């Protein structure tokens, strides 16, 4: 059994326009020392799914079903008060924009010590020492002094480091990173990713990396789930997804990466159209309306299952046969997914 297992998770919002199926039956798991990348475009349900793990989407108009098994315990059945002891202590989370995710009126030190004293009965001084230690650990120089700074006095990268320090305050077992580098400069992105990687190895963290950026995924993940319209459309390890993608949506994502290493100047390919409304998703395959390879069978719902012989952990939701996929897997004349590793970053 994995450390954290998500089974058939559904998060449905009752809205005036009808039931919005933000997350519609997804499964994934993550173990200590492993990094799961969840990739998908805005609104595909990746953040909602992960916030639901910690009960952050609970509201009167939200229906949540399925199971979130953490060390065998189903977090979905816990009351808010019980769930509190998991939040920040067992499973911590960092968010996209560290400026808005930190409270603007409180000093960094106060925000970190608050995370500690919420879960541990320690003195203020001890919490403060621990906070300084954490800041040092995430690479902020002069940590004791920096505890007194306000978030707006930090640069973007330092804020995200402070967020990470706060998330690690209680030695959690799982770290959910929701687009942790999206709001940062490219050079800072790389630093933060390296930091996360180092910490996950040193501390044996299980990391869930949520992003829309395949480059980020290729840097840190060892398993990848590709989400589209509330579902996982393809799931495999890093090499399988990048070198042998099976779902046309994954092809589209990979094909739309800018490739400065390519000599030939060509128009970046794109996936036509818009993601479907989650209020009324298309029957059958959700990607069907945008898929250039649609055929009759697509009106039936393709289950997420292994479709390649001999690869039981590479699953996808596409009715095309593996041979057809190999032929059709072309984007703007360039074969994709066959390049050497490292070319996509």
């Amino acid at each position, binding site marked *: 059994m994995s450390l954290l297992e998500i089974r058939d998770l559904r998060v449905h919002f009752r809205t005036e326009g009808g039931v919005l199926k933000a997350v519609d039956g997804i499964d994934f798991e993550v173990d200590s020392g492993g990094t799961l990348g969840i990739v998908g475009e805005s609104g595909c349900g990746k953040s909602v799914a992960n*916030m639901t793990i910690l009960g952050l989407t609970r509201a009167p108009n939200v229906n949540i079903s399925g199971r979130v098994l953490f060390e065998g315990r189903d977090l979905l059945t816990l009351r808010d008060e019980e769930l*509190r002891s998991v*939040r920040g*202590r067992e499973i911590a989370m960092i968010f996209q924009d560290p400026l808005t995710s930190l*409270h*603007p*009126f409180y000093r960094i030190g106060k925000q970190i010590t*608050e995370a500690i004293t*919420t*879960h541990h009965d320690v003195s203020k001084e001890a919490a403060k020492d621990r906070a300084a230690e954490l800041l040092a650990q995430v690479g902020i120089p002069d940590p004791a002094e920096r505890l007194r700074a306000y978030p707006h006095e930090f640069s973007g990268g330092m804020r995200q480091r402070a967020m990470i320090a706060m998330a690690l305050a209680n030695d959690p077992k799982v770290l959910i990173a929701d687009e942790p580098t999206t709001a940062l400069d490219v050079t800072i992105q790389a630093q933060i990713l390296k930091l996360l990687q180092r910490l996950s190895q040193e501390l044996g963290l299980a990391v869930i990396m949520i992003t829309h950026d395949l480059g980020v995924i290729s840097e840190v993940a060892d398993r990848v789930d590709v989400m589209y319209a509330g579902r996982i459309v393809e799931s495999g390890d890093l090499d399988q997804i990048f070198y042998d993608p099976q779902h046309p949506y994954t092809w589209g994502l990979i094909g739309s990466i800018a490739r400065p290493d390519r000599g030939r100047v060509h128009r970046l390919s794109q996936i036509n159209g818009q993601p479907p409304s989650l209020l009324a998703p298309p029957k059958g395959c959700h990607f069907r309306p945008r898929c250039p390879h649609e055929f009759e069978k697509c009106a039936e719902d393709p289950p997420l299952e292994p479709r390649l012989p001999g690869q039981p952990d590479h699953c996808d939701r596409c009715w095309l046969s593996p041979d057809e996929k190999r032929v059709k897997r072309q984007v703007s004349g360039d074969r994709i997914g066959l390049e050497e590793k490292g070319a996509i970053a």
Partner: protein
Amino acid sequence: MTRYIVRRVLWGAALLVIVSAVVFVIFYLLPTADPAKLRVGRNPNPALIAQIREQLHLNDPVYVQFWEYMKGVFFHFDFGQSYVSQAPVREIIVDRLPATALLVSGAVVIWLAMGLPVGIVSAIKRRSLMDRTMMVTSLALISAPVFWLGLVALYLFAEDVGVIQIFPGQGSYIGAESFAAKCWSMFLPWVVLAAATAAIYARYMRSSMIETMAEDYIRTARAKGLRERDVVVRHGVRSAITPIVTLLGLDIGLLLAGNAILTESVFNIPGIGHQIVLSIRRSDLPMIQGIVLFGAFFIIIFNLIVDIIYAYLDPRVRYQ
């Protein structure tokens, strides 16, 4: 921080000078009647008027008058003498001030004590029956003019004329000796004066709170595992209340220009608002001018205090 405060204080001082100049222009250069004629009383004769003109320095050039006036206001805190009672304006204002101060401060306490919790609870229990009830009630209170509300309160609860005779009624402040008795006599005026503003604050706090609770840092606070109560109070209210402080500074000042006058008149409280109504009726120019200036000082000082408090509440302000 010191620089910020110094800058605000200097601005406040500059504003005071400007306000004084404007008041001078309005009351000395554009009077509706000759001040000397107003001053002269029931049996005027040209010689007496000329004498008074001389006495009031009305024959001096405008810039000399202006200088004398500014000198009086800023160096001697002298607003002149009432035409009616001949007493110094400053003394009359100081005499009327306690009643107004008691009225306003009590009302502020009541409106904050009612408005803020209602707003917070409404925001947290958004769209609940309680939220709806409180918001409709507040709308009704906002729509009710103070003088009407005051009369209704007297009709319903005044000791002498009320349907349910429990609270001291009109004019009871004048007879009250002890501080406790004065406060008790202020009960109805406080509630009446506070009602409309409490309702506005409840609605304002509600929307500010709803906005704040949708912020990313609230999500962070929850993800840290804080108790919901701490999330709401320490992270939510702490942010949502900051704009209210600004509003408070303006509203306390504005009371003197509006609802406090009405409340004092309805309840016959001998305060500044009551005095200005009397003075306007009697065309007592120095008195009106003194109160207007005093009111302006008051508003400027409260805004200054608010600006400084705001900088303490929001650390980002100190660097702007």
